[in-house]
Protein backbone atom coordinates (compact mmCIF):
# COMPACT_ATOMS: atom_id res chain seq x y z
CA UNK A 1 0.00 0.00 0.00
CA UNK A 2 2.77 2.44 1.00
CA UNK A 3 4.60 1.43 -2.18
CA UNK A 4 1.59 2.40 -4.31
CA UNK A 5 1.28 5.69 -2.40
CA UNK A 6 4.96 6.51 -2.99
CA UNK A 7 4.60 5.70 -6.67
CA UNK A 8 1.52 7.92 -6.96
CA UNK A 9 3.31 10.78 -5.20
CA UNK A 10 6.38 10.36 -7.42
CA UNK A 11 4.25 10.17 -10.56
CA UNK A 12 2.54 13.45 -9.69
CA UNK A 13 5.89 15.09 -9.02
CA UNK A 14 7.40 13.86 -12.29
CA UNK A 15 4.35 14.98 -14.26
CA UNK A 16 4.46 18.42 -12.62
CA UNK A 17 8.20 18.76 -13.31
CA UNK A 18 7.75 17.85 -16.98
CA UNK A 19 5.07 20.54 -17.30
CA UNK A 20 7.37 23.04 -15.54
CA UNK A 21 10.29 22.19 -17.84
CA UNK A 22 8.09 22.71 -20.90
CA UNK A 23 6.85 26.02 -19.49
CA UNK A 24 10.34 27.28 -18.63
CA UNK A 25 12.05 26.35 -21.87
CA UNK A 26 9.21 27.38 -24.15
CA UNK A 27 8.90 30.55 -22.01
CA UNK A 28 5.56 31.74 -23.39
CA UNK A 29 5.93 35.34 -22.26
CA UNK A 30 2.92 36.51 -24.22
CA UNK A 31 0.71 34.05 -22.36
CA UNK A 32 1.66 34.98 -18.81
CA UNK A 33 2.50 38.68 -19.21
CA UNK A 34 -1.16 39.84 -18.89
CA UNK A 35 -1.39 37.88 -15.64
CA UNK A 36 1.88 39.39 -14.42
CA UNK A 37 0.68 42.86 -15.43
CA UNK A 38 -2.58 42.34 -13.53
CA UNK A 39 -0.75 41.12 -10.41
CA UNK A 40 1.69 44.06 -10.53
CA UNK A 41 -1.19 46.54 -10.96
CA UNK A 42 -2.96 44.98 -7.98
CA UNK A 43 0.06 45.05 -5.69
CA UNK A 44 1.64 48.34 -6.86
CA UNK A 45 0.09 50.61 -4.16
CA UNK A 46 1.14 48.18 -1.41
CA UNK A 47 4.61 47.72 -2.87
CA UNK A 48 5.04 51.50 -3.11
CA UNK A 49 3.98 51.94 0.52
CA UNK A 50 6.13 49.04 1.73
CA UNK A 51 9.26 50.16 -0.14
CA UNK A 52 8.97 53.83 0.87
CA UNK A 53 8.31 52.88 4.51
CA UNK A 54 11.35 50.61 4.54
CA UNK A 55 13.58 53.28 3.01
CA UNK A 56 12.34 55.91 5.47
CA UNK A 57 12.90 53.58 8.45
CA UNK A 58 16.37 52.68 7.22
CA UNK A 59 17.32 56.32 6.79
CA UNK A 60 16.00 57.22 10.25
CA UNK A 61 18.03 54.47 11.90
CA UNK A 62 21.05 55.46 9.88
CA UNK A 63 20.67 59.06 11.05
CA UNK A 64 20.27 58.06 14.70
CA UNK A 65 23.32 55.82 14.60
CA UNK A 66 25.41 58.54 13.00
CA UNK A 67 24.70 61.23 15.64
CA UNK A 68 27.94 60.36 17.45
CA UNK A 69 29.93 61.13 14.32
CA UNK A 70 28.36 64.54 13.69
CA UNK A 71 31.05 66.64 15.46
CA UNK A 72 33.89 65.00 13.55
CA UNK A 73 31.95 65.19 10.29
CA UNK A 74 31.30 68.87 10.95
CA UNK A 75 35.02 69.62 11.29
CA UNK A 76 35.86 67.60 8.18
CA UNK A 77 33.14 69.37 6.21
CA UNK A 78 34.34 72.83 7.26
CA UNK A 79 37.82 72.05 5.98
CA UNK A 80 36.43 70.63 2.78
CA UNK A 81 34.17 73.65 2.32
CA UNK A 82 37.13 75.99 2.31
CA UNK A 83 39.02 74.05 -0.30
CA UNK A 84 35.87 73.67 -2.40
CA UNK A 85 35.30 77.43 -2.47
CA UNK A 86 38.59 77.80 -4.30
CA UNK A 87 37.72 74.89 -6.56
CA UNK A 88 34.36 76.46 -7.49
CA UNK A 89 36.06 79.59 -8.69
CA UNK A 90 38.31 77.55 -10.94
CA UNK A 91 35.47 75.36 -12.21
CA UNK A 92 33.35 78.26 -13.40
CA UNK A 93 35.93 78.79 -16.08
CA UNK A 94 36.02 75.07 -16.88
CA UNK A 95 32.22 74.98 -17.19
CA UNK A 96 32.25 77.53 -19.97
CA UNK A 97 34.93 75.57 -21.79
CA UNK A 98 32.94 72.32 -21.29
CA UNK A 99 29.79 73.76 -22.85
CA UNK A 100 31.79 74.90 -25.83
CA UNK A 101 33.43 71.49 -26.27
CA UNK A 102 30.08 69.68 -25.95
CA UNK A 103 28.70 71.79 -28.76
CA UNK A 104 31.69 70.94 -30.88
CA UNK A 105 31.61 67.18 -30.10
CA UNK A 106 27.82 66.93 -30.33
CA UNK A 107 27.46 65.41 -26.84
CA UNK A 108 24.00 65.52 -25.23
CA UNK A 109 23.59 68.43 -22.79
CA UNK A 110 22.93 66.93 -19.42
CA UNK A 111 19.93 69.03 -18.56
CA UNK A 112 18.17 68.60 -21.89
CA UNK A 113 16.72 65.08 -21.56
CA UNK A 114 12.99 64.54 -21.61
CA UNK A 115 12.35 62.53 -18.45
CA UNK A 116 9.60 60.49 -16.82
CA UNK A 117 10.21 60.54 -13.08
CA UNK A 118 9.02 57.91 -10.64
CA UNK A 119 9.84 55.74 -7.66
CA UNK A 120 11.46 52.37 -7.19
CA UNK A 121 8.87 50.08 -5.55
CA UNK A 122 10.63 46.73 -5.50
CA UNK A 123 13.97 45.04 -6.13
CA UNK A 124 15.49 41.70 -6.96
CA UNK A 125 15.32 39.66 -3.77
CA UNK A 126 17.61 36.82 -4.73
CA UNK A 127 20.91 38.19 -3.55
CA UNK A 128 21.93 40.03 -6.69
CA UNK A 129 21.24 43.51 -7.95
CA UNK A 130 19.75 42.56 -11.29
CA UNK A 131 16.56 44.56 -11.57
CA UNK A 132 14.15 46.87 -9.85
CA UNK A 133 10.48 47.69 -10.32
CA UNK A 134 9.61 51.20 -11.55
CA UNK A 135 6.16 52.54 -10.71
CA UNK A 136 5.40 53.83 -14.21
CA UNK A 137 4.45 51.69 -17.20
CA UNK A 138 2.95 51.82 -20.67
CA UNK A 139 0.19 54.18 -19.53
CA UNK A 140 2.84 56.78 -18.65
CA UNK A 141 4.72 56.44 -21.95
CA UNK A 142 7.40 53.98 -20.87
CA UNK A 143 8.70 51.84 -23.73
CA UNK A 144 11.14 48.94 -23.96
CA UNK A 145 14.81 49.86 -24.01
CA UNK A 146 14.53 53.29 -22.38
CA UNK A 147 17.59 54.29 -20.37
CA UNK A 148 16.91 54.91 -16.67
CA UNK A 149 18.99 57.45 -14.79
CA UNK A 150 19.34 59.01 -11.36
CA UNK A 151 20.49 62.47 -10.27
CA UNK A 152 21.82 64.49 -13.16
CA UNK A 153 22.64 61.85 -15.73
CA UNK A 154 23.98 58.72 -14.02
CA UNK A 155 22.65 55.70 -15.87
CA UNK A 156 21.57 52.76 -13.70
CA UNK A 157 19.84 50.50 -16.21
CA UNK A 158 17.37 50.06 -19.04
CA UNK A 159 13.69 49.18 -19.22
CA UNK A 160 13.51 45.48 -20.05
CA UNK A 161 9.80 44.70 -19.54
CA UNK A 162 6.81 47.04 -19.68
CA UNK A 163 3.39 46.51 -18.07
CA UNK A 164 0.40 48.84 -17.92
CA UNK A 165 1.29 50.55 -14.62
CA UNK A 166 4.86 49.45 -13.93
CA UNK A 167 8.06 48.42 -15.63
CA UNK A 168 10.98 46.17 -14.87
CA UNK A 169 14.34 47.94 -15.17
CA UNK A 170 17.37 45.76 -15.79
CA UNK A 171 20.33 47.17 -13.89
CA UNK A 172 23.72 47.57 -15.53
CA UNK A 173 25.06 44.93 -13.11
CA UNK A 174 22.72 42.24 -14.48
CA UNK A 175 24.61 39.50 -16.33
CA UNK A 176 22.45 40.02 -19.43
CA UNK A 177 23.01 43.77 -19.53
CA UNK A 178 25.35 45.33 -22.08
CA UNK A 179 25.74 49.01 -22.94
CA UNK A 180 28.16 50.67 -25.37
CA UNK A 181 30.51 52.94 -23.43
CA UNK A 182 33.56 55.10 -23.90
CA UNK A 183 36.44 56.25 -21.71
CA UNK A 184 36.11 60.03 -21.54
CA UNK A 185 39.82 60.68 -20.98
CA UNK A 186 41.24 58.45 -23.72
CA UNK A 187 38.31 57.84 -26.07
CA UNK A 188 38.63 54.04 -25.82
CA UNK A 189 35.40 52.27 -26.75
CA UNK A 190 34.03 49.13 -25.15
CA UNK A 191 30.94 47.38 -23.76
CA UNK A 192 29.90 47.66 -20.13
CA UNK A 193 28.60 44.28 -18.92
CA UNK A 194 27.12 43.18 -15.62
CA UNK A 195 28.65 40.39 -13.58
CA UNK A 196 26.26 38.18 -11.57
CA UNK A 197 24.36 41.31 -10.53
CA UNK A 198 27.27 42.22 -8.29
CA UNK A 199 29.63 44.28 -10.45
CA UNK A 200 30.38 45.93 -13.75
CA UNK A 201 33.19 45.48 -16.31
CA UNK A 202 34.17 47.32 -19.49
CA UNK A 203 34.86 44.58 -21.99
CA UNK A 204 35.95 44.25 -25.63
CA UNK A 205 38.44 47.12 -25.45
CA UNK A 206 41.15 46.61 -28.05
CA UNK A 207 44.75 46.21 -26.92
CA UNK A 208 45.77 49.35 -28.80
CA UNK A 209 43.37 51.56 -26.80
CA UNK A 210 44.49 53.24 -23.62
CA UNK A 211 42.69 52.73 -20.30
CA UNK A 212 43.80 54.20 -16.97
CA UNK A 213 42.61 53.55 -13.41
CA UNK A 214 40.42 56.47 -12.37
CA UNK A 215 39.17 57.25 -15.88
CA UNK A 216 35.52 58.20 -16.26
CA UNK A 217 33.28 55.92 -18.30
CA UNK A 218 30.16 57.24 -20.05
CA UNK A 219 27.70 55.83 -22.57
CA UNK A 220 28.90 56.27 -26.14
CA UNK A 221 25.50 56.37 -27.85
CA UNK A 222 26.54 53.69 -30.36
CA UNK A 223 23.60 51.54 -31.37
CA UNK A 224 21.21 54.44 -30.86
CA UNK A 225 19.24 52.92 -28.00
CA UNK A 226 20.92 54.74 -25.12
CA UNK A 227 21.78 58.46 -25.34
CA UNK A 228 25.47 59.31 -25.20
CA UNK A 229 27.10 61.13 -22.32
CA UNK A 230 25.35 59.32 -19.44
CA UNK A 231 27.76 58.62 -16.61
CA UNK A 232 28.43 54.95 -15.82
CA UNK A 233 31.32 55.00 -13.34
CA UNK A 234 35.08 55.06 -12.89
CA UNK A 235 37.67 52.48 -13.91
CA UNK A 236 39.21 50.66 -10.94
CA UNK A 237 41.68 48.27 -12.56
CA UNK A 238 42.54 46.82 -15.95
CA UNK A 239 43.25 43.21 -16.96
CA UNK A 240 43.67 41.26 -20.18
CA UNK A 241 40.79 39.00 -21.28
CA UNK A 242 41.37 35.19 -21.00
CA UNK A 243 41.82 34.92 -24.78
CA UNK A 244 44.37 37.80 -24.56
CA UNK A 245 42.61 39.66 -27.39
CA UNK A 246 41.00 42.46 -25.40
CA UNK A 247 41.41 44.55 -22.29
CA UNK A 248 38.83 44.23 -19.51
CA UNK A 249 38.41 46.99 -16.93
CA UNK A 250 36.50 46.79 -13.66
CA UNK A 251 34.14 49.75 -13.29
CA UNK A 252 33.03 51.18 -9.95
CA UNK A 253 29.46 52.39 -10.49
CA UNK A 254 28.83 56.02 -9.62
CA UNK A 255 25.81 55.23 -7.48
CA UNK A 256 24.75 52.45 -5.11
CA UNK A 257 22.14 50.36 -6.91
CA UNK A 258 20.64 48.94 -3.71
CA UNK A 259 19.80 52.45 -2.45
CA UNK A 260 17.78 53.70 -5.42
CA UNK A 261 14.67 55.70 -4.65
CA UNK A 262 13.71 58.29 -7.28
CA UNK A 263 14.68 57.46 -10.86
CA UNK A 264 13.99 58.90 -14.31
CA UNK A 265 13.32 57.16 -17.62
CA UNK A 266 14.85 58.98 -20.56
CA UNK A 267 12.49 59.44 -23.49
Amino acid at each position, binding site marked *: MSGKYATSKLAKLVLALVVCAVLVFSNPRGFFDPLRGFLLTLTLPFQRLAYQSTRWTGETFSFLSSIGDIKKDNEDLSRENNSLAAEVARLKEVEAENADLRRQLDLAPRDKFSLIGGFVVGQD*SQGSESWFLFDHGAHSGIVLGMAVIVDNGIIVGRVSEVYPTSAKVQLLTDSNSSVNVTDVETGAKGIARGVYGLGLVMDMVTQSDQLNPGDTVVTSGLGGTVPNGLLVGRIKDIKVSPDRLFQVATIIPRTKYSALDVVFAVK
Partner: protein
Amino acid sequence: MSKKLIIFLIIVLACIFQVSVFPGVFSWNNGPDLLLLLVIYWTIKEGFEGTLGRNILVGVLADLVNFRPVGTYLAIFLLVSFLVSSVSKRFLIVAGIWRVFTLTATIIVATLAERFLLEAIFSIATYFNRSDIGTVPAPFLSLVSLEQIFLNLLFFPLVYFFLKKIERSQLWSGQRQY
Protein backbone atom coordinates in the same frame (compact mmCIF):
# COMPACT_ATOMS: atom_id res chain seq x y z
CA MET B 1 -13.50 34.69 5.34
CA SER B 2 -12.77 31.75 3.07
CA LYS B 3 -9.70 29.71 3.98
CA LYS B 4 -8.54 29.78 0.35
CA LEU B 5 -8.78 33.58 0.23
CA ILE B 6 -6.72 33.85 3.42
CA ILE B 7 -4.05 31.56 1.95
CA PHE B 8 -3.97 33.66 -1.22
CA LEU B 9 -3.61 36.88 0.79
CA ILE B 10 -0.81 35.36 2.90
CA ILE B 11 1.08 34.38 -0.25
CA VAL B 12 0.61 37.82 -1.85
CA LEU B 13 1.74 39.50 1.38
CA ALA B 14 4.84 37.30 1.44
CA CYS B 15 5.56 38.31 -2.19
CA ILE B 16 5.25 42.02 -1.33
CA PHE B 17 7.58 41.63 1.65
CA GLN B 18 10.12 39.74 -0.41
CA VAL B 19 10.28 42.20 -3.29
CA SER B 20 9.55 45.54 -1.63
CA VAL B 21 10.72 45.28 1.99
CA PHE B 22 13.61 42.87 2.42
CA PRO B 23 15.90 44.16 -0.39
CA GLY B 24 15.97 47.52 1.38
CA VAL B 25 16.71 46.00 4.76
CA PHE B 26 19.29 43.28 4.20
CA SER B 27 22.68 43.40 2.53
CA TRP B 28 23.16 42.11 -1.03
CA ASN B 29 19.39 42.50 -1.58
CA ASN B 30 19.19 39.16 0.18
CA GLY B 31 16.33 38.54 2.54
CA PRO B 32 14.64 35.48 4.03
CA ASP B 33 12.73 33.49 1.43
CA LEU B 34 9.25 33.75 2.93
CA LEU B 35 7.67 31.80 0.09
CA LEU B 36 10.05 28.88 0.68
CA LEU B 37 9.29 29.00 4.41
CA LEU B 38 5.55 28.88 3.65
CA VAL B 39 6.09 25.82 1.45
CA ILE B 40 8.15 24.12 4.17
CA TYR B 41 5.58 24.86 6.89
CA TRP B 42 2.57 23.70 4.91
CA THR B 43 4.34 20.58 3.64
CA ILE B 44 5.41 19.54 7.15
CA LYS B 45 1.85 20.05 8.34
CA GLU B 46 -0.13 18.47 5.52
CA GLY B 47 2.30 16.53 3.33
CA PHE B 48 3.21 16.83 -0.34
CA GLU B 49 -0.10 15.86 -1.90
CA GLY B 50 -2.18 17.75 0.64
CA THR B 51 -0.46 21.00 -0.28
CA LEU B 52 0.15 20.42 -3.99
CA GLY B 53 -2.38 23.00 -5.13
CA ARG B 54 -1.16 25.56 -2.61
CA ASN B 55 2.49 25.04 -3.57
CA ILE B 56 1.62 25.43 -7.24
CA LEU B 57 0.03 28.80 -6.43
CA VAL B 58 3.11 29.85 -4.42
CA GLY B 59 5.39 28.83 -7.29
CA VAL B 60 3.38 30.66 -9.94
CA LEU B 61 3.17 33.87 -7.91
CA ALA B 62 6.88 33.66 -7.07
CA ASP B 63 7.68 33.40 -10.77
CA LEU B 64 5.42 36.33 -11.63
CA VAL B 65 6.76 38.77 -9.02
CA ASN B 66 10.40 37.80 -9.56
CA PHE B 67 10.08 38.13 -13.36
CA ARG B 68 11.16 34.53 -13.91
CA PRO B 69 9.62 32.28 -16.59
CA VAL B 70 6.58 30.64 -15.04
CA GLY B 71 7.64 27.15 -14.06
CA THR B 72 11.02 28.07 -12.56
CA TYR B 73 10.12 28.55 -8.92
CA LEU B 74 7.15 26.26 -9.46
CA ALA B 75 9.48 23.34 -10.22
CA ILE B 76 11.83 24.30 -7.39
CA PHE B 77 9.11 24.56 -4.76
CA LEU B 78 7.52 21.27 -5.84
CA LEU B 79 10.87 19.50 -5.59
CA VAL B 80 11.61 21.09 -2.22
CA SER B 81 8.12 20.17 -1.00
CA PHE B 82 8.69 16.54 -2.07
CA LEU B 83 12.05 16.50 -0.30
CA VAL B 84 10.66 18.07 2.88
CA SER B 85 7.69 15.68 2.86
CA SER B 86 10.02 12.67 2.62
CA VAL B 87 12.24 13.96 5.42
CA SER B 88 9.38 15.00 7.71
CA LYS B 89 7.63 11.62 7.47
CA ARG B 90 10.78 9.82 8.54
CA PHE B 91 12.56 12.16 10.94
CA LEU B 92 10.14 14.76 12.26
CA ILE B 93 8.11 12.18 14.19
CA VAL B 94 10.57 12.37 17.09
CA ALA B 95 9.82 14.69 19.97
CA GLY B 96 11.80 17.22 21.96
CA ILE B 97 15.16 18.74 21.07
CA TRP B 98 15.80 16.26 18.22
CA ARG B 99 12.75 17.64 16.44
CA VAL B 100 14.30 21.12 16.57
CA PHE B 101 17.60 19.82 15.16
CA THR B 102 15.80 17.95 12.40
CA LEU B 103 13.68 20.98 11.55
CA THR B 104 16.80 23.15 11.41
CA ALA B 105 18.51 20.65 9.12
CA THR B 106 15.39 20.52 6.94
CA ILE B 107 15.37 24.29 6.50
CA ILE B 108 19.10 24.35 5.70
CA VAL B 109 18.78 21.55 3.14
CA ALA B 110 15.67 23.13 1.59
CA THR B 111 17.42 26.52 1.24
CA LEU B 112 20.50 24.95 -0.33
CA ALA B 113 18.32 22.84 -2.61
CA GLU B 114 16.45 25.94 -3.78
CA ARG B 115 19.65 27.84 -4.60
CA PHE B 116 21.23 24.80 -6.22
CA LEU B 117 18.20 24.14 -8.42
CA LEU B 118 18.01 27.82 -9.40
CA GLU B 119 21.63 27.80 -10.48
CA ALA B 120 21.17 24.45 -12.26
CA ILE B 121 18.17 25.68 -14.26
CA PHE B 122 19.90 28.84 -15.39
CA SER B 123 23.20 27.07 -16.08
CA ILE B 124 21.32 24.64 -18.37
CA ALA B 125 19.58 27.59 -20.01
CA THR B 126 22.92 29.34 -20.57
CA TYR B 127 24.43 26.14 -22.00
CA PHE B 128 21.64 26.03 -24.59
CA ASN B 129 22.05 29.77 -25.30
CA ARG B 130 18.73 30.61 -23.68
CA SER B 131 19.77 33.62 -21.62
CA ASP B 132 16.23 34.95 -22.10
CA ILE B 133 15.17 32.43 -19.47
CA GLY B 134 17.37 34.08 -16.89
CA THR B 135 20.82 34.28 -15.47
CA VAL B 136 22.34 32.74 -12.38
CA PRO B 137 21.83 34.98 -9.37
CA ALA B 138 24.61 34.89 -6.80
CA PRO B 139 26.62 31.63 -7.15
CA PHE B 140 25.35 28.67 -5.12
CA LEU B 141 28.47 28.37 -2.96
CA SER B 142 28.75 31.94 -1.76
CA LEU B 143 28.24 34.13 1.28
CA VAL B 144 24.86 35.09 -0.18
CA SER B 145 23.65 31.48 0.26
CA LEU B 146 25.02 31.37 3.82
CA GLU B 147 23.29 34.61 4.66
CA GLN B 148 20.01 33.31 3.26
CA ILE B 149 20.28 30.10 5.33
CA PHE B 150 20.81 32.18 8.45
CA LEU B 151 17.88 34.49 7.64
CA ASN B 152 15.55 31.59 6.82
CA LEU B 153 16.38 29.94 10.16
CA LEU B 154 15.78 33.25 11.92
CA PHE B 155 12.46 33.92 10.23
CA PHE B 156 10.97 30.42 10.28
CA PRO B 157 9.76 30.70 13.91
CA LEU B 158 8.08 34.02 13.04
CA VAL B 159 6.35 32.43 10.03
CA TYR B 160 5.42 29.39 12.14
CA PHE B 161 3.81 31.39 14.95
CA PHE B 162 2.09 33.81 12.55
CA LEU B 163 0.48 30.96 10.62
CA LYS B 164 -0.43 29.11 13.82
CA LYS B 165 -2.17 32.23 15.11
CA ILE B 166 -4.07 32.64 11.85
CA GLU B 167 -5.12 28.98 11.93
CA ARG B 168 -6.43 29.27 15.48
CA SER B 169 -8.33 32.45 14.72
CA GLN B 170 -11.97 32.72 13.78
CA LEU B 171 -11.01 33.84 10.27
CA TRP B 172 -9.61 30.39 9.51
CA SER B 173 -12.38 28.29 11.02
CA GLY B 174 -15.10 30.66 9.88
CA GLN B 175 -16.86 30.26 13.19
CA ARG B 176 -18.43 33.20 14.94
CA GLN B 177 -18.04 33.81 18.63
CA TYR B 178 -21.22 34.77 20.36
